[in-house]
């Protein structure tokens, strides 16, 4: 009996070791796969109308239909539709993920979001500049340094008070690990303000991201529906 039990344990352990090795190998493959920027075409969306629709899917139609929309061109974002309500909808690409994210150069990443007027003034410039710099061919380390310098010289602004955005698109893609994640709102503050929403405490329905080198604190609150009104997964 003991021998059979030992064999069973050994088999299970072996299986776990193999699985872990396969997972690590896959992660290394991903890291290798996205170690540098892919050809620019892979980050672009050939169908301009599809990109406009994707950008607008970040917020309920009551907000997005009157928002300005930007689409990504070969050298940066371009205005595709003028807005009337002060909101701007745009599809971020992978280089807006944290610099240490293995998907940083994953060309499949699509992050539609709609910014409210204070965020349009203070956070959209970051999206626009990062895209210009990435499309100009900067490496990740140069992008990091350029971003850091831009904030230190006030070329890029701090988040204005009341800055927030909608990320409620069912079609959003954070990469293989998180997929379309969840439907959520985001709120931005200067890191120097040391804002505390209790996000580190268990049971609190808030996530916090401290960016680097961007001196920005970001809070996210999951919401129960996608922008099209269908139910979204919740933590």
């Amino acid at each position, binding site marked *: 009996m003991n021998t059979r039990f030992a064999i069973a344990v050994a088999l299970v352990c072996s299986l776990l070791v193999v699985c872990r090795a396969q997972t690590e190998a896959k992660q290394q493959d991903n890291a290798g796969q996205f170690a540098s920027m892919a050809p620019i075409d892979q980050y672009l969306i050939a169908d301009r109308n599809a990109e406009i629709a994707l950008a607008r899917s970040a917020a309920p139609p009551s907000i997005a239909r009157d928002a300005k929309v930007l689409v990504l061109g070969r050298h940066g974002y371009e205005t595709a539709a003028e807005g009337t309500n002060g909101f701007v909808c745009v599809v971020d690409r992978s280089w807006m993920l944290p610099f240490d994210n293995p998907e940083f150069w994953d060309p499949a990443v699509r992050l539609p979001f709609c910014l409210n007027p204070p965020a349009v003034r203070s956070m959209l410039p970051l999206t626009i500049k990062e895209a210009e710099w990435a499309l100009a061919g900067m490496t990740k380390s140069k992008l990091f340094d350029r971003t850091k310098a831009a904030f230190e010289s006030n070329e890029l602004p701090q988040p204005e008070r009341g800055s*927030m955005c909608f990320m409620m698109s069912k079609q959003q893609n954070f990469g293989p690990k998180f997929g379309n994640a969840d439907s959520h709102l985001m709120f931005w*503050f200067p890191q120097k303000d040391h804002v505390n929403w*209790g996000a580190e405490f268990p*049971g609190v329905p808030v996530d916090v991201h401290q960016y680097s080198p961007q001196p920005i604190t970001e809070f996210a609150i999951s919401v*129960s529906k996608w922008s099209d009104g269908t139910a979204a997964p*919740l933590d």
Partner: protein
Amino acid sequence: MKGKWGSSHLLQICAMILALTAAGPAQAQEAKSYSNMAPVEQYLMADRDAEIALARTAAPDSVSREAEVLVLGRHGYETAVKGKNGFTCVVERGWMSPFNAPEFWNPKLRGPICFNPAATRSILPLTIKRTELILAGMSKAQMAESIKSALDRKELPALEGGAMSYMMSKKAYLTDSGEHNLCHLMIYAPLTERASWGADLAGSPIMFAGQFQGAPEPITVFLVPVAKWSDGTPAPSM
């Protein structure tokens, strides 16, 4: 996702929260039953420990167990428990509604709320001030004038960036209507229009609350419903 409540109940709750917090000029007529302040005793909780426990239900235990807790006395809020984490929990009464809210004087209202550190410094003083003025017997008009003067003289603090609060208590009683409650977070912004956050638009998960809105406090309050009560059980989906 709809939990135990159907969508008609949710609409009812949305309506009642809006009625409670966003009463505009067209809604300025007060319900006759709450046209005046009730005897003070009706706003107080006889059991101090029960009030402490109720205040703490506003946020998950991980936040509220080390928060400062205030309870309502005859002349205002008193510190019942010293805190360690910068958060403060308190049970608000009906008079923290807009001045023209129909249930402003409803003595049954109990709004447990835990303020984060920025809100403890910049929103809680408004709760304390309003409450003191109410319990001193001031009329709404006198109270509004007094708060305005205090703001002008900078005796009350300016809004701090990042101020927010938790209202996740299953035991809250926010209105006589419907199911009486809504599990949500509150976020305080400098005075602005509800449209700047897309609040109350069709499909938007953000609700506007007219709690202050420049009358006289220069602060706009937004609500975001969340999925679980502070005890971790599912709250009705919005």
